């Protein structure tokens, strides 16, 4: 089943053979088998393995991960899909669509998934691998409930489809979310939106300094993957770096951390020339907003600010705000209203959660994960249990 291009999507040919009103039981055997098979196909395909993000998706679909997600949900046996769910994936992340598709499918829905318009090779390969499985007669029912489409920005057919859909999942920035929220929908339509979020890293300076050399070196690599790999432009990429500890430790930890990162950057990272200019313009916007000159440290492609007044301003392309705290709870006062992920280094996520949420405090974030895991999509995302929202639970009592 090839990707449906904008023209045929508008014409509506894709509806032939598509089971618009069908749903399935939550995580039914056939769906689990299909996802297991998909995981195997991806993880054994030579080309697929060369894309780290596709491999990550392959692991996401494997049995152990699904079983854990299903077990996390109450009454999986009395859950069913809602019907057809439309997924709007971001245009600049190759595989976000695939994660969204799996969530919709596992919850028991039929899925129309809007792909990025840019032809990323991972996107195309992933769809090809899905298609390869769907020709198997065993998976025919899934094929009848799956469409990968590309549409124009203001597609009338897409708006019409959303007006009739049982569910809508929108990944994207605030503007995209506003646009789709404003569209007419069925009164009972289930909607999940993922608007712009911001994220931070928390380094326990003493904990970091105590790490074995190899582990400390790896942590720089993990931080690089969380940030520079996606131009620091993903919702989960840290823009604030909290340094926890006393001044002596923090000074030493900063020096080691940034110099370890610098050696990766100088060997592997080349900033997009337009992004390089944008970084200057971002700083210009910051100084205009704050109304005075800022103290800025520039080394390689890392630009570091230390003024809490830039909190809330967009930092990207390797620009970080560094804040020193002596107690973990001081982090709370600097978290932004749309703070999503806190990655941790030199301290465990469990420990951070325990200390932030002690005495009934609200921790102010949706995710606490170790450095390096910032971008790993999970079934629980942005504080939302997506499988729960995308399935209907029958009350039996």
């Amino acid at each position, binding site marked *: 089943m090839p990707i449906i291009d904008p023209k045929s999507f508008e014409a509506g040919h894709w509806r032939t053979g598509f089971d618009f009103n069908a749903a399935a039981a939550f995580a039914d055997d056939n769906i689990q088998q299909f996802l297991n098979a998909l995981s195997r196909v991806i993880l054994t395909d030579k080309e697929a393995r060369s894309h780290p993000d596709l491999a990550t998706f392959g692991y996401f679909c494997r049995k152990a991960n699904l079983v854990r997600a299903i077990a996390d949900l109450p009454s999986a046996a009395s859950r069913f899909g809602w019907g057809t769910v439309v997924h709007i994936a971001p245009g*600049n992340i190759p595989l976000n669509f695939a994660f969204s598709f799996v969530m919709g499918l596992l919850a028991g829905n039929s899925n129309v998934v809007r792909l990025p318009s840019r032809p990323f090779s991972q996107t195309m390969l992933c769809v090809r691998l899905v298609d390869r499985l769907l020709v198997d007669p065993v998976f025919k029912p899934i094929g009848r409930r799956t469409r990968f489409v590309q549409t124009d920005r203001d597609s009338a057919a897409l708006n019409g489809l959303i007006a009739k859909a049982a569910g809508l999942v929108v990944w994207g920035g605030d503007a995209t979310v506003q646009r789709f929220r404003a569209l007419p929908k069925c009164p009972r339509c289930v909607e999940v939106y993922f608007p712009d979020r911001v994220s931070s890293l928390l380094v326990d300076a003493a904990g970091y300094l105590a790490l074995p050399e190899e582990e400390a070196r790896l942590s720089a690599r993990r931080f690089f993957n969380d940030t520079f790999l996606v131009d620091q*432009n993903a919702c989960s990429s840290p823009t604030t770096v909290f340094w926890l500890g006393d001044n002596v430790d923090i000074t030493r930890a900063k020096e080691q951390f940034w110099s370890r990162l610098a050696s990766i950057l100088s060997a592997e990272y080349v900033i997009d020339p*337009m992004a390089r200019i944008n970084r200057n313009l971002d700083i210009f916007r910051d100084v205009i907003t704050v109304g005075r000159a800022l103290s800025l440290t520039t080394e390689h492609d890392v630009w570091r600010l230390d003024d809490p007044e830039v909190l809330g301003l967009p930092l990207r392309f390797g620009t970080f705000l560094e804040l020193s705290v002596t107690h973990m709870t001081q982090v709370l006062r600097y978290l932004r209203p749309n703070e999503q992920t806190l990655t941790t280094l030199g301290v465990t996520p469990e420990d951070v959660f325990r200390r932030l949420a002690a005495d009934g405090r609200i921790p102010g974030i949706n995710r606490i994960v170790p450095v390096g895991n910032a971008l790993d999509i999970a079934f629980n995302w942005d504080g939302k249990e997506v499988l729960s929202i995308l399935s209907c639970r029958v009350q039996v009592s």
Partner: protein
Amino acid sequence: MTSPILNDLIALTEHHRAACKRYAHYCDTLYQKDSPLGSLADLPFLPVRAFKDFDLCSVAEEDVFKVMMSSGTFGARSRIYIDRETAQLQTRTLTAIFGEAFGKTRSPMLVIDSESTVRDRNRFSARTAAVNGFSMMASDRCFALDNDMSLNIPRVAEFLQEHNGKRIFIFGFTFLVWQAFCGALRAKNQKLALKNAFLLHGGGWKKLESEKVSNPQFKAVMADRTGCVDVRNYYGMVEQAGTIFMECPQGSLHASAWSDALVRDIHTHKALPYGKVGLIEVFSTIQKSYPGHALLTEDIGLTRRAFDCPCGHPGTIVEVHGRLPAAEVRGCSDAYN
């Protein structure tokens, strides 16, 4: 790189630091306060897009004489605040650069544009600014295009008839001269008698990118259709109106006595030597009312020493190769397209 205008630019940097708070805060954030300014490369510069994103003005509001805007094909447009002094300097430098290339006599001007481009005050754009700016060098003016950008040959013929025997000054944006003038003449299989004319065109080749028109090809078609062989391109921008880089008879774009240029690495923004390709930074000494005297453009190209050109003009040569492509940024912020 030593430059005859370095001291003027250092003085301008000081002037704008004192007069434009935003500029001062930006410079203080990104540049060491007392670092020596020994060459053009040491001067603080602004990305030219800063004028699209921010209001930057070094004079009191009541002294703003006019606001110039860039042609905003995509999104935001630059807003350039001009006071009387800067406006006069723009006129003076433009007149001098023009006179050096074409002589001081005023000629009848054939504008390859429509009258509506300059009439509609709400559409004040780079094209309006350019047409009006160069009109000062003209004794009479005729718009060759109708409002729908189609060539009105009878009107042009009448104008040429009226000024029979005089040297005609043809002016237009490069893409309009190519498409709406040369293109229309070719399509209608017509020729005009403009042997005794000179053409000045600018605004960039970007809109002709898909047609892959070279400067020699441009000149050849112009000569074939009109007989005009004195064809000069210029490089300039509304953010530095006045101090244009004029093409010499040898085909090089030279800086004027009030301007200079260098090239920076596209990733690191470190200054590059002559002949190396990077982002073009342009300098101009006449920006008193806004901090636009050192601007990093989004144009890719290189610079050469003046004496690499046999024409004898002392100004640094720029060679413009194209525009920096839009960033293909990863991440998930507002990426619905």
